[in-house]
C-alpha cells in the first residue's frame, strides 16, 4: 500500500481538508466524506457567550478523522504556542498545524516566529506541521528543529491561484526528509494533481471546496486529482523535449515508392 506516513502514523488519503467557510455543517461533512480525507483542520476561537453556537465537533466523526487544530489568528510565536496548548487541553491529540500570520491582507506566514514556535512546541511533545512560505532554507530549519512535515504555500490562503511557488516547492521536495504537504492557494483538482506529480506527499485544501456551489462533488474531484497526480508520480513522468519525437513509426509511409 502507498500510504502517507506522518510521525509514524499511516494514512490512506493524501488529501487533507480544512473545515472553514462551508455554507453549512452538512455541506462540510459531505465534502469531507467525498474527498476521502482522513485529516481535517479546525480553528480555535472564543465562544460567543451571548449566542453559543452548535459545536463543530458534534458534526465530525473523531474515529474517522484526525483533528488537526491550527493556530490561525496567531500573530507571533507566543500566541501560536498558547493556541496549540489550548487545543491539547481540549482533548485533542498533540498534533498542530502551526500558522503564524501577522499580516491580515495576504496572510503570509512569518518565517521567524513560525520557527520559534515550532521549536517550543516540538520540545513540548507536539507533532508540528508548519504552514510556511515556500522557502527551501526555512524548510530545512523547520525539519531540523523536529517538525513532522513542512507545509509550503502554493499561493496566499484562499486565492485559488494554484502553484505559483512551483520552482521553490520542487527544491523543497528534492531536499526534504519529512513529508511535504502543499497547503494554501490550490483552487482546482489540476493544481492538486500538479503538486502530487511533482512529488509532494500530500495537499491541503479548504476554500477550493467550501467556496463552490457543490462542495461534495468538488471533494470527489480533488480526491481524483490527488490520486491521479500521485499515481503519475509513482509511475514516473516521461522527459520533456524541445523537438517533436514521433509516436508512430517513421517508416512504411504510403508515399514511398519502394
Amino acid at each position: 500500500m502507498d500510504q502517507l506516513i506522518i510521525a509514524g502514523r499511516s494514512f490512506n488519503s493524501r488529501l487533507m481538508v480544512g473545515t472553514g467557510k462551508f455554507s453549512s455543517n452538512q455541506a462540510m461533512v459531505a465534502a469531507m466524506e467525498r474527498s476521502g480525507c482522513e485529516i481535517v483542520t479546525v480553528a480555535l476561537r472564543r465562544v460567543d457567550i451571548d449566542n453559543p453556537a452548535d459545536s463543530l465537533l458534534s458534526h465530525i466523526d473523531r474515529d474517522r478523522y484526525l483533528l488537526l487544530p491550527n493556530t490561525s489568528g496567531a500573530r507571533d510565536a507566543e500566541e501560536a504556542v498558547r493556541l496549540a496548548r489550548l487545543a491539547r487541553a481540549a482533548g485533542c491529540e498533540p498534533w498542530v498545524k502551526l500558522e503564524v500570520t501577522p499580516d491580515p491582507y495576504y496572510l503570509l506566514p512569518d518565517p521567524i516566529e513560525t520557527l520559534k514556535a515550532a521549536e517550543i512546541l516540538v520540545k513540548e511533545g507536539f507533532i508540528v506541521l508548519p504552514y510556511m512560505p515556500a522557502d527551501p532554507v526555512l524548510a530545512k530549519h523547520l525539519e531540523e528543529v523536529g517538525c513532522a512535515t513542512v507545509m509550503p504555500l502554493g499561493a496566499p490562503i484562499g486565492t485559488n491561484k494554484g502553484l505559483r511557488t512551483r520552482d521553490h516547492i520542487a527544491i523543497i521536495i528534492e531536499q526534504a526528509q519529512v513529508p511535504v504537504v502543499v497547503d494554501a492557494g490550490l483552487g482546482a483538482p489540476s493544481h492538486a494533481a500538479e503538486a502530487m506529480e511533482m512529488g509532494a506527499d500530500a495537499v491541503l485544501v479548504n476554500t477550493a471546496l467550501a467556496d463552490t456551489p457543490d462542495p461534495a462533488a468538488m471533494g470527489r474531484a480533488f480526491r481524483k486529482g490527488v490520486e491521479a497526480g500521485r499515481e503519475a508520480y509513482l509511475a514516473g513522468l516521461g522527459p520533456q523535449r524541445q523537438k517533436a519525437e514521433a509516436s508512430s513509426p517513421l517508416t512504411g509511409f504510403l508515399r514511398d515508392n519502394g
Partner: protein
Amino acid sequence: MDLCINGQQKQYSEPLSIVQLLEQLELTPERVVVELNREILTAEKRADIQLHNGDTLELIQFVGGG
C-alpha cells in the same frame, strides 16, 4: 462579583464554580476549553475551582478553519 469573560465584563453572584458558570451559559463542558487568568484548566483540574471577583476567563471552542 465581576468577571471578565471573553473580553466582556459580567456580573454573577457568589459562590460560583467554573462548572456552574458553563451550565448557566448553556455550554457543553467537554466542548469548551477554559483559561482562567491565563492558565489553561484541563477538564479534571477545573472541576472544583470556584471563581472570584476580578477573575478573567477565556472560553474557547473549535470552529471551522483551514
